[in-house]
């Protein structure tokens, strides 16, 4: 296990003071969330894959706890504690350690304990403005701390949502594609299935039962399924009701009666996701692609353009930034704008900072409804290396 020398400790503390001063100056209030967090909240928000990278443990009272794997969720909990209705705009900043499981106890490149400094902006109604503000403050912080040439990469999951909303596709398929978006392989497989054999899930299911289910008469489905279970001597055990089973069988049966998704729509989705280019060129390509396909996502595209102009106005060198339509797909809680700041020193595999919009997270951890939220985290150990001119 890496032992921090007093030199790097002092240097990290000094750097953190510089970063926090930038955030405080921009009216971000410093908060200090607990290192030990209830594991349940993370498991609900992130899912079981959290366990793959988090130190989860139980205490003497059998309470399941974890060492925080990020500071975004703990900070959001502070916000909800102070504002249970989540009806007040707020700006918080933090600096501290996070903990991630690494096979074999970790290495200098992948330590199991490292630091993050960051900001979170909640319930700000003007979203493009909030997005731009968080990126601008993060850029200011890393540059003030000595990063010479930040390389910016952005994405926008809102554009993808808008695209799926605008194309002619059954709602249940739209939901399925949205849910699979985070797993590119599964997404591609689903898209292929929908555009070739949408009813393939019916294979292997009891044909006599499926034949009896009429998508036009959903009210009768539950009784038909119950009859089937009774006549086959299958007991309906557990908490999932027969009605839920019948509803899904109906949806599968409906798929089997549906025409495949037009190839043009599948191609359009694939073409959009393949866009990766300098920001301005990417914007033009997106506009062109959608115009050619007669797709109107005016509002989302306006928001995209407005965010860029706010960033330019705020002094960010947007001409040099890259847009990547796929960017953000690996982080399930992002819902809109996403960004990453890299350095020449450490390269694209070790971002110095990253962030984005996550409007669903607060609802998952207890807010009464989805709350606009956007934030960013700086990997301060990396920033220190890059700013001091070290190369990877």
């Amino acid at each position, binding site marked *: 296990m890496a032992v921090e020398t007093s030199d790097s400790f002092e240097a990290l503390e000094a750097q953190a003071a510089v970063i926090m001063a930038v955030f405080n100056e921009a009216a971000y209030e410093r908060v200090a969330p607990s290192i030990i967090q209830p594991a349940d909240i993370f498991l609900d928000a992130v899912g079981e894959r959290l366990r*793959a990278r988090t130190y989860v443990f139980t205490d003497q009272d059998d309470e399941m706890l974890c060492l925080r794997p990020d500071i975004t969720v703990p900070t959001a909990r502070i916000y909800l504690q102070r504002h249970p209705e989540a009806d007040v705009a707020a700006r918080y900043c933090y600096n501290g350690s996070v903990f991630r499981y690494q096979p074999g106890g970790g290495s200098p490149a992948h330590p199991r304990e490292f630091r993050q400094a960051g900001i979170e902006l909640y319930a700000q109604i003007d979203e493009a403005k909030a997005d731009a503000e968080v990126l601008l403050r993060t850029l200011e912080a890393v540059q003030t701390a000595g990063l010479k040439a930040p390389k910016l990469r952005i994405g926008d999951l809102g554009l993808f949502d808008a695209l799926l909303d605008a194309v002619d596709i059954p709602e249940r398929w739209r939901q399925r594609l949205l849910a699979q978006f985070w797993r590119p392989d599964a997404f591609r497989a689903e898209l292929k299935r929908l555009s070739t054999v949408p009813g393939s899930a019916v294979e*292997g299911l009891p044909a006599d039962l499926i034949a009896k289910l009429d998508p036009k008469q959903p009210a009768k489905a539950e009784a038909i399924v119950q009859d089937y279970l009774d006549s086959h001597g*299958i007991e309906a055990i557990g908490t*999932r009701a027969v009605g839920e089973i019948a509803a899904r069988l109906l949806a599968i049966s409906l798929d089997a009666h549906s025409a495949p998704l037009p190839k043009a729509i599948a191609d359009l989705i694939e073409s959009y996701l393949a866009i990766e280019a300098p920001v301005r060129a990417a914007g033009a390509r997106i506009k062109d692609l959608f115009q050619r396909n007669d797709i109107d996502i005016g509002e989302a595209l306006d928001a995209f353009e407005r965010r860029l102009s706010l960033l330019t106005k705020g002094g960010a060198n947007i001409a040099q930034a890259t847009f990547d339509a796929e960017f953000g797909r690996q982080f399930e809680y992002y819902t809109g704008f996403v960004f990453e700041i890299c350095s020449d020193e450490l390269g694209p595999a070790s971002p110095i900072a990253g962030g984005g919009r996550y409007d669903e997270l607060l609802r998952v951890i207890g807010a009464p409804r989805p709350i606009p939220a956007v934030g960013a985290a700086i990997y301060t150990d990396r920033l220190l290396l890059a700013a001091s001119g070290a190369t990877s």
Partner: protein
Amino acid sequence: MSEPLIVAVPSKGRLMEQTAEVFARAGMVLKKVGSDRGYRGIIEGIDGAEVIFVSASEIVEQLKAGRAHIGVTGEDLAREHVADMEKRFQVMRKLGFGHADVVVAAPAAWLDVRVMSDLEAVGRDFRRLHGRHVRVATKYMNITRRHFQANGVTSYRIVESLGATEGTPAAGTAELIVDITTTGTTLKANGLKVLDDGVLLRSEATLFSSRAAPWTPDTRAALAEIARHIASL
């Protein structure tokens, strides 16, 4: 005298008897020696090897820590308790007994669920309707998580279950289970079915060697001798 090769062998039950049988068939007779209540032994005909008799789960820990050079235990235990097993253990030989399949089982009444990918769709609907995740009862938390992830299933929560796991769906404390099954009749009696692609692991008693153990020319020589006998099976 140089340090011996430490061979960890299950200390009780069928697992111990069958290990002794297989070793004997390979021309290696396990013999308990000494006064410390029969927890130590030798292999007749193999010089420089010492046997320790410990529980199957303790054998995994001994191999992990390198206190045993080689050992016989269930593959299910090794895969569950060693995060990167392939890197830390080497499979010398699957021994052909102690068979147990680790399977995913759901209520037989879930007529719409046939394969793993159905679970993701069910999990999403369930969460929307019930306000919580589908629960999977198991003692194999790590194996479950890895397998579900590999199959793109993310909408679920694990509840740890150390006994009578197959009864949890009917009792309402979980929706599905991951458990070992040898015949499948217990599952059926509890109203459950194994998914078509729901066999996570076909486990059996396995002879492992540990990469963490202190390997010397002497222990390597003893290992080679044992490997030669095992190869004759």
